[in-house]
């Protein structure tokens, strides 16, 4: 078994074991064990990867290629580069944190953890796929458990939100399918065989008109899950209704599939299309950045605030990807990671606050710093990280994006950049608003004076997420170098 | 082969027969009448097969055989249909087509 397939096999085994568990205690232990090992493997992967690329200068390493459907030339083909390694680690961390946060999942615990792990299978598989078909398969596997997770364990209008989220995401993936088929049937443009292999297709000169036709389809297909304006509306409702761990996993990891897919498929395989269309999607994403931030200001539900903030932050990812240069790309990947950790942390904290106060309405909360100081303090830190304070990962990512975006000296791109940059102010406004209303000020409700203090498993979850945020923020160089090395192949097409 | 009458005329007749059958099927209110209309449609085809065989391809008897099978099958079909209709009649004492509209939308 090669080390990448383990990333899929291990969670599958975890699921199989979970099937035989009888109660919450057993289920969470199994889930914890599974995700711990997974995290261990992910961290191990970083080091083996670094070692490997010293001697191996292939675009993807640790590749494994097994023919699956030979008539369609579909392969089970996996491999990683720096980008996917980083995202795998993100996933492993968020999943583990999610297990910790769900420590007290009373209702149908077994099913909950199974769905959670199945979701993570999809994500892991997506990140390691080289074959478009397998990638698509894993993409859908990652999306569909969301329906059950939100629908069964959610709160509020859970059925509606779950349905909306699933339909919009599956609708997007359906559109994506057209794009993938379009790419597939043009992968023989240079006279080779039809193939789904990304690395092979990247070598093919797909006709320019075809690229221009299929780029927007593929882009939108992926970008919907990356919360591209105006297709982001599944996310606020979905996040608001989802149980904590699911919000974490969804915002933290699943939404990253969008950016990654856009990058790995749309931009990498259809560079001419990207050049042709980038202006349009830059307008959309830059608008989304500022729009999401503004929309977040007036929300009163904590999860909505965070969801719109995700729209804004992930808009920045797409924006950066479309800038088509290495610096911005690097920033986009870093932003994906950073947003993954931050937003997961946010949702974890919101979940804890909600679990104690039973409300997410900021106007009803107040003075929490006094009552639950640890959670509140971390919330402040997360807030500061989210508004791009130096020393946290968000800053590094945003600066890369802005510098990269500025490399593009077309005046319209510049204006887009300035608009996107100005979101940092609006971000500060909505973050500080929440901090001011909810955490500071007088305690509004007598009942809140005796809230339960933070528990050990919650602390563990928080630290797991906080640590990388600070680590990336303080010492970004090693990570950014890891990613930068993997960006060169992408650059060829857009030059 | 009927002297003085070309195939076109006969085919026109069978076509009319066919559409009469269709018309009957659509407009009759009694299930039995509808069944009779179906017979018209089948008979149009039967005549067609025979005529085409006789006028155009007289060297083989494919059409004629075909029409015999059609007649046989049509008989079976009718028998079956009537039996089901009778069953309905036992339940509701009616064979009006408007009685079989309970399942819709």
């Amino acid at each position, binding site marked *: 078994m090669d080390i990448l397939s383990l990333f899929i096999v291990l969670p599958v085994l975890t699921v199989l074991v979970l099937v035989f568990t009888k109660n919450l205690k057993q289920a969470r232990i199994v889930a914890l064990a599974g995700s711990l090992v997974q995290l261990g493997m992910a961290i191990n992967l970083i080091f083996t990867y670094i070692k490997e690329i010293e001697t191996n200068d292939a675009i993807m390493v640790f590749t494994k290629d097994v023919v699956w459907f030979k008539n369609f030339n579909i392969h089970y083909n996996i491999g990683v580069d720096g980008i996917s390694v980083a995202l795998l680690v993100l996933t492993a961390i968020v999943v583990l944190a999610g297990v910790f946060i769900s420590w007290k999942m009373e209702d149908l615990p077994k099913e909950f953890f199974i769905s959670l792990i199945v979701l993570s299978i999809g994500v892991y598989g997506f990140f390691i796929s080289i074959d478009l078909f397998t990638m698509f398969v894993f993409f859908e596997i990652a999306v569909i458990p969301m329906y059950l997770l939100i629908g069964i364990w959610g709160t509020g209008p859970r059925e509606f939100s779950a349905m909306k989220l699933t339909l919009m995401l599956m609708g997007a993936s359906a559109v994506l399918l057209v794009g993938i088929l379009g790419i597939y049937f043009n992968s023989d443009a240079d006279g080779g065989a039809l193939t789904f292999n990304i690395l092979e297709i990247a070598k093919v000169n797909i006709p320019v008109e075809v690229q221009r036709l299929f780029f927007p389809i593929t882009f939108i297909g992926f970008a919907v899950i990356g919360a591209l304006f105006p297709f982001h509306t599944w996310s606020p409702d979905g996040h608001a209704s989802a149980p904590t761990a699911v919000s974490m996993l969804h915002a933290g990891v699943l939404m990253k599939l969008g950016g990654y897919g856009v990058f790995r498929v749309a931009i990498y395989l259809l560079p001419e299309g990207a050049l042709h269309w980038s202006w349009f999607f830059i307008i959309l994403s830059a608008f989304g950045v500022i729009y999401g931030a503004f929309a977040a200001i007036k929300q009163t539900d904590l999860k909505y605030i965070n969801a719109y903030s995700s729209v804004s932050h992930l808009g920045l990812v797409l924006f950066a990807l479309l800038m088509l240069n290495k610096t911005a790309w690097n920033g986009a990947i870093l932003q994906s990671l950073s947003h993954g950790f931050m937003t997961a942390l946010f949702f974890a904290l919101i979940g804890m606050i909600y679990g104690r106060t039973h409300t997410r309405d900021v106007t009803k909360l107040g003075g929490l710093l006094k009552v639950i100081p640890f959670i509140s303090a971390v919330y402040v830190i997360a807030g500061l990280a989210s508004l791009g304070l130096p020393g946290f990962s968000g800053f590094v990512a945003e600066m890369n994006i802005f510098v990269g975006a500025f490399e593009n000296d077309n005046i319209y791109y510049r204006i887009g950049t300035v608009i996107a940059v100005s979101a940092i102010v609006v971000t500060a406004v909505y973050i*500080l608003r929440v901090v001011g209303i909810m955490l500071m*000020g007088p305690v509004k409700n007598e009942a809140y004076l005796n809230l339960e203090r933070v528990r050990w498993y919650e602390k563990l979850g928080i630290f797991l997420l906080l640590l990388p945020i600070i680590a990336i923020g303080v010492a970004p160089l090693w990570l950014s170098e890891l990613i930068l090395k993997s960006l060169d192949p992408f650059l060829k097409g857009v030059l | 082969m009927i002297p003085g009458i070309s195939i076109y005329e006969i085919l026109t007749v069978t076509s009319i027969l066919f559409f009469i059958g269709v018309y009957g099927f659509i407009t009759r209110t009694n299930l039995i009448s509808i069944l009779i209309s179906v017979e018209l449609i089948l008979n149009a085809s039967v005549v067609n097969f025979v005529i085409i065989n006789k006028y155009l391809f007289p060297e083989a008897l494919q059409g004629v055989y075909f029409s015999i099978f059609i007649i046989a099958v049509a008989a079976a079909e009718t028998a079956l249909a009537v039996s089901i209709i009778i069953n309905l009649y036992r339940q509701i004492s009616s064979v009006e*087509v408007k009685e079989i509209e309970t399942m819709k939308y």
Partner: protein
Amino acid sequence: MNLNLVILIPLIPLVVFLVLGLFYKKIKPSISGYVGVLGLLFSTGLAFYTAYSYFIEIGKTEGIYQTIVEKTAWMNFTDSLRIDMGVLVDPIAVMMLIVVSVISLMVHIYSRGYMKGDPGYTKYFAFLSLFTFSMYGLVLATNLFQIYIFWELVGVSSYLLIGYYYTKESAVAAAKKAFVVTRFADLGFLIGILIIGYYTGTYDFETLNNPEGTGILNWAATSFMGLSALTWALILIFIGGAGKSAMFPLHIWLPDAMEGPTPVSALIHAATMVVAGVYLVARLFPMYYFIEDGFALNIVAFIGAFTALFAAIIAITQTDIKRVLAFSTMSQLGYMMLALGVSGYEGHEGLGFMSSMFHLFTHAMFKALLFLCAGSVIHAIHSNFLKDMGGLRKYMPITNITFLIAALAIAGVPPLAGFWSKDEILVAAFEHNLFLYVIGLFVAGLTAFYIFRIYFGIFWGKEGNYKEKPHESPGSMTAPLLILAFLSIVGGFIPFSEFISPDKAGFETHLNLPLAAIAVFAGLLGIVLSWIFYKRENELADKFAKGFGTFYTWAYHKFYFDELYLFVTKRILFNGIARGAAKFDKKYVDGTMIGIGNQTVNTSEKIKGIQSGKVQDYAFAFIAGAVVLAIICIYLWLN
């Protein structure tokens, strides 16, 4: 010179912060205060050692003070653009190190008394250390991005400290306001950085500031809307500086920032953080001076002058002593900006630059002192307002004396520190632009007037209605007062121009007697006037105020800038755009998506009649469908 020691200067407070922050619960308050003070004592010692070794031991090489840099890559953007982390030692950095160390140390000591018994004592010291670390980092930054990073960090420390009394709504609001306004200004800064990075290919101060470097020489190569792109960048960067230094019109956060604990106001909002803007312009002075013949620099000068005047006028009308001091700070910062703005580059031309830095230095001492005195007063009577004060000189002799010294210093009475630095500024302005000089002079008079207005109001006049007898503050608070008072007296005698000048070569300054006399006269006039108005309770001041009528009301309300901003933010941005965006999202964007879904279901409902349940309808559809298909097929075949 050993840069490792310099690196230690910021690192010590960082370690203190981490220790206090992580073991927040475990450390006893009494210990945390000592930890903070001790840490800073080390840093201060190192700062002085650095100053000594930089100016005296190493001294000038080839006639100028060399810039010493030590850095390491932190983040690579492109092949040429990257963020380095490191330390840069040059005269103004060293000067700032001293300022930050001294004031911070004093504030640390003072706070041990002032904050005694506060539940968040440890947290407070942790934040102070965080701030000090950030400020050191800002001062020692080697490149634009590094300075931006620490710029943001001081901003957030300021946020945390203003909002220190977080259960108070006004404190929370003030903290938010301070952060958001400066953040808005930082937006300009950031874009400025991006522009500079793109056009010059570097963020390093050394390269950027080199008068023969590509950045400065090629400024004319690019233009945007009539100006060089780099000029735009400098203007944008100045906006950043203006935000931090509370220049008009981004000043609105500073008065509110007084919601924080008073020592914090002294440290952050009087002496150190707010001068960061001035420091930033000084740091990039060669660029400002050379690019487009100092176009951006002129803007700096005029904004500075206007702010100085504007703030001084408001200061006269305020009744909250901390606010008066806050406006005073603004006014003095305007002075510094003005001085930078009128400065030249070489030799004596650089007088403005030098005087700006000089004033920064002396102002830090006496303004911190003023704040700490005010803190001492507030500590005693638990009120910020003049109306609650009066006649305190009997109860608080030390505070009284030190406040007086500081007031005299800010009023520019010789031979106190303020006199020297202010005089140099006026000389520089006089040599550059008579108009600016007149404004400066007028402001000097106003400064003396308002500062003595509160001095008399606090310590003289009718005794306030005290619930319990006010008493002098404890030794831990008065000691820093005395030290700062001492510094305010002698600070002016440092031969600043020897050490600091734009070209780093240093030059000789001489007292320009006529101008000095005029300035002193203006100051004394102000003092005398306020003596007449406020020494005793009388009607004069009110009458006088009424004489100004509307203008007074406007000034009292800070020219309604808060309301204007409130209007723009609350009405237009929040209620207009933000609510609009939220509504638009719910109603139209989401509405469209949901609408598609609903429409599908509706369509389904509408067409259900097709499945009528009538077998004859089915037959009709069957035949019709076949006929239509046949027609289509035949049509296709014919075409």
